[in-house]
């Protein structure tokens, strides 16, 4: 079940979500992006840092259920600690700003991924949602 994006407001907290970083996911991401940095192929390789942000954002977008016409307006990322495949992470995320301007909903979502209590990375995304959007009739 997805959230109604029209009701998202500052202070909304998404449920904490635990997930693991698998080698297969990392391989799939590197192939999709075409990232061939040799360091990722080493035995003690770490995951590409943007993969963690992309995975976290993907989970949030799935939870929100953005309607068609939604736009990813901006993105900030901070990489703090490298992660190796097999690591268990916890994703915490919430809405820090939400406003309606010119018929569109501007929603800022901040997220942080932690390994135990150690911050691994954090991100901030601005999502621009059509103002007349109701629950989507297609997955988004």
């Amino acid at each position, binding site marked *: 079940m997805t959230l109604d994006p029209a009701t998202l407001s500052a202070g909304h907290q998404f449920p904490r979500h635990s997930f693991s970083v698998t080698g297969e*996911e990392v391989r*799939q*991401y590197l*192939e*999709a*992006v*075409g*990232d061939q*940095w040799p*360091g990722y192929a080493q035995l003690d390789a*770490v995951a*590409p*840092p*943007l993969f963690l*942000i*992309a*995975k976290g*954002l*993907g*989970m949030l*977008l*799935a939870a929100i259920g*953005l309607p*068609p*016409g*939604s*736009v*990813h*307006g*901006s*993105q*900030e*990322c*901070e*990489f*703090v*600690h*490298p992660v190796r495949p097999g690591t268990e992470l916890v994703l915490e995320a919430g809405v820090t700003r939400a406003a309606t301007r010119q018929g569109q909903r501007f929603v800022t979502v901040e997220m942080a991924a932690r390994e135990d209590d150690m911050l691994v990375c954090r991100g901030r995304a601005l999502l621009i949602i059509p103002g007349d959007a109701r629950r989507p009739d*297609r*997955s*988004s």
Partner: protein
Amino acid sequence: MSLPAVGVEYVTSRSVTQLQINAYAEASGDRNPLHVDPVFAVSTPLGGTVAHGMLVLGWVSALLTEAFGHAWIRHGTLRVRFRTPARPGDTLALRAQVTSVDSQDEVTKLGLTVTATNQGGDEVLSGQATVAIPRR
């Protein structure tokens, strides 16, 4: 690694294909039909499918990984705006240019501008990056 001077530029290019967009949708879990369903996307104001902004940002991050290796992975930041959609058939020029070099006690912090520009000269994304390189 030797430190770059202000003005040094890292450049690469990428061709946008629907196959690559589809692969990214599977890898990221973002299967918005605007990205992967040409029949649906043609009926939207965008008039066709577009690449995920995070895919283009992934190319920028890959460029910075190639330039700075583990320093980027351990101590990198990005701050960008997505300005124009990237579409299948586009060729993007990706650039990262050093704008500041700040040597501190234990690290040298680089500031960079990052851009992705399509073949028509439109900015697909633009913003800033920083990377902290440990001093040895």
